[in-house]
């Protein structure tokens, strides 16, 4: 049985299609391992009974033409799932049961996958360590008391810990790529507008994108193929020609021009990250690609820009959590008293902090100095990429400035926590696709990731580069199952 959870998605799909495994067997295996892995705290809501029922039903009448036939999987608890509690990691949605399904998860179920449960995440996806969740810290399977990254920390932990064969996360400033990097997994943030935002609890609407997380690039490509659809229910969804990412996946990247941005060599970056990056340059060259030094001059302004734009949008997006229609309500003497108590008790400290920042930068007298300014700088950041892409096909950078850190290490210093996203945030601001692949280990044996950034709508290209590099890197995650007694 434990063999099953070691298999990649592609292997599982093949084995189910060849009838070597049934959906019930696969589902039972992942449930069993999930049951033994409570220490990781990866799940907020388990839906195991219903998952088994669905698996049995699938096996009675298996449709093997589907892309994810009878594959069980857990998803980040930011996706609304019909009839299954959806909390966004917050007390304020502690008891919320949607009567509707997000487009992305709907796409997944349509291809035959089965929901195992809802995975832990930072509250409203605001965090880089999964420490802001109302439902507690998540353990990184890599080592005890290390964060899995965030905000899709539960997703990354469950994936690396083999509680789910694949998963999905959301990425507003690095929330897929950073935890993928921290856990030795593959995570893709698609182009803005590639995956529908319908039914995903919103954090910052102009930055949020759902994306796949997987054990390897091929699985990641397959899942991206399933979740990326044009959706008329999301006005920012874009109707472009989507590839068959898994079918068209190729390790031939000969002649591709890959940009190496000098501004990503930031002050105080550990040598092992720099070394990893150099190794990455070597790998792409060995694959026949050419590297070109480029400049993205406004890189250092990306984080300050992000910490205006994202909280501003969040302060407004989270206004709907007011205790009136759904979710938690505190007792209040009158309407305003109820609002203030509900939001003060229902939101955690980081969410409150960001709502305050957002409210401030939009408030009368400060709008031009902060919000408008940030939008202008955002334009400059996008221009940097547009310029670079006149010369190169993709850009290679480290995914994060460090490997996973200890739980509690950065909770008292918001700015140092924010610095985690220094390499991922510019990609969201420019709306581009970016993928993090595991590329090596630090001195302690913790995984480190490299990020490949593509042109808008060019997911196929960065998946191909990642696929080619993956072969060269031949990364093996060092997971000891320390949490299973």
């Amino acid at each position, binding site marked *: 049985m434990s063999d099953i959870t070691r298999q990649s998605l592609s292997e599982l799909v093949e084995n189910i299609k060849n009838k070597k495994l049934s959906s019930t067997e696969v589902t039972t295996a992942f449930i069993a391992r999930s049951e033994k892995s409570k220490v990781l705290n990866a799940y907020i809501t388990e839906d195991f009974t219903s998952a088994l029922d669905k698996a049995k039903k699938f096996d009675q009448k298996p449709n093997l033409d589907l892309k994810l036939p009878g594959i069980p999987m857990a998803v980040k608890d930011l996706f609304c799932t019909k009839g299954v509690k959806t909390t966004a990691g917050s007390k304020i949605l502690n008891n*919320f*049961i949607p*009567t509707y399904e997000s487009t992305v998860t709907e796409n997944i179920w349509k291809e035959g996958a089965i929901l195992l449960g809802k995975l832990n995440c930072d509250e409203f996806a605001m965090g880089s360590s999964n420490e802001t969740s109302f439902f507690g810290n998540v353990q990184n399977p890599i080592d005890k008391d290390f964060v899995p990254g965030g905000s899709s920390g539960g997703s990354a932990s469950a994936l690396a810990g083999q509680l789910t064969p694949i998963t999905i996360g959301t990425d507003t400033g690095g929330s897929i790529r950073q935890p993928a990097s921290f856990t030795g997994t593959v995570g893709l943030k698609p182009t*803005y*507008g590639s995956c529908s935002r319908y039914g995903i609890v919103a954090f910052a609407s*102009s930055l949020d994108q759902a994306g796949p997380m997987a054990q390897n690039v091929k699985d990641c490509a397959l899942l991206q193929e399933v979740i990326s659809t044009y959706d*008329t229910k999301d*006005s*920012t969804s*874009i*109707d472009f020609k989507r590839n068959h990412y898994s079918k068209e996946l190729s390790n031939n990247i000969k002649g591709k021009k890959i940009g190496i941005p000098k501004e990503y060599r930031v002050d105080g970056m550990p040598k092992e990250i720099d070394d990893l990056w150099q190794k990455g340059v070597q790998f792409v060259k060995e694959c026949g690609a050419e590297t070109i030094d480029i400049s993205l001059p*406004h890189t*250092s*302004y990306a*984080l*300050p*820009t992000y*910490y*205006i734009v994202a909280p501003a949008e969040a302060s407004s997006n989270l*206004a709907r959590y*007011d*205790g*009136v*229609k759904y*979710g*938690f*309500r505190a007792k209040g*003497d*009158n*309407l*305003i008293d*109820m*609002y*203030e*108590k509900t*939001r*003060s008790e229902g939101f955690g400290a980081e969410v409150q*902090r960001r*709502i*305050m*920042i957002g*409210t*401030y930068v939009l*408030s009368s007298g400060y709008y031009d100095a*902060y919000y*408008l*300014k*940030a*939008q*202008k*700088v*955002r*334009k*400059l950041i*996008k221009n940097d990429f547009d310029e670079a892409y006149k010369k190169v096909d993709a850009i290679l950078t480290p995914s994060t400035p460090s490997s996973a850190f200890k739980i509690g290490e950065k909770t008292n210093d*918001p*700015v140092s926590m*924010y610095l985690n996203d220094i390499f991922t945030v510019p990609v969201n601001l*420019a709306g581009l696709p970016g993928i993090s692949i595991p590329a090596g280990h630090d001195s302690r044996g913790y995984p480190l990731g490299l990020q490949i950034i593509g042109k*808008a709508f060019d997911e196929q290209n960065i998946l191909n580069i990642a696929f080619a590099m993956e072969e060269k890197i031949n990364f093996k995650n060092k997971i000891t199952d320390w949490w299973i007694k």
Partner: protein
Amino acid sequence: MSIDLKTIKHISKLSRISVDEQKAEKLAGDLNSIFDFIEKLNELKTDNVKPLTSVAETTLKLRSDKVESENIREQIIKNSPQENEDYFVVPKVIE
């Protein structure tokens, strides 16, 4: 720049989050360190830059004027913390 307690109180009012003195002090500290970091943007001259509001390279799609949503009152009110059969119910509004 410095965000004082009065400003914290003001934005807590606007965002309908109650803060007591202790929380206000903490928030003021956090926000000041975050804004110190944000001030970096002032190094850039942006007078002639057009602001970017969306990276979605498309125009707003228009939907046709059709009623597709049925009466789902029960569904809508189901998750509400306090309701009767017909309405959402909130504590009295004091003007």
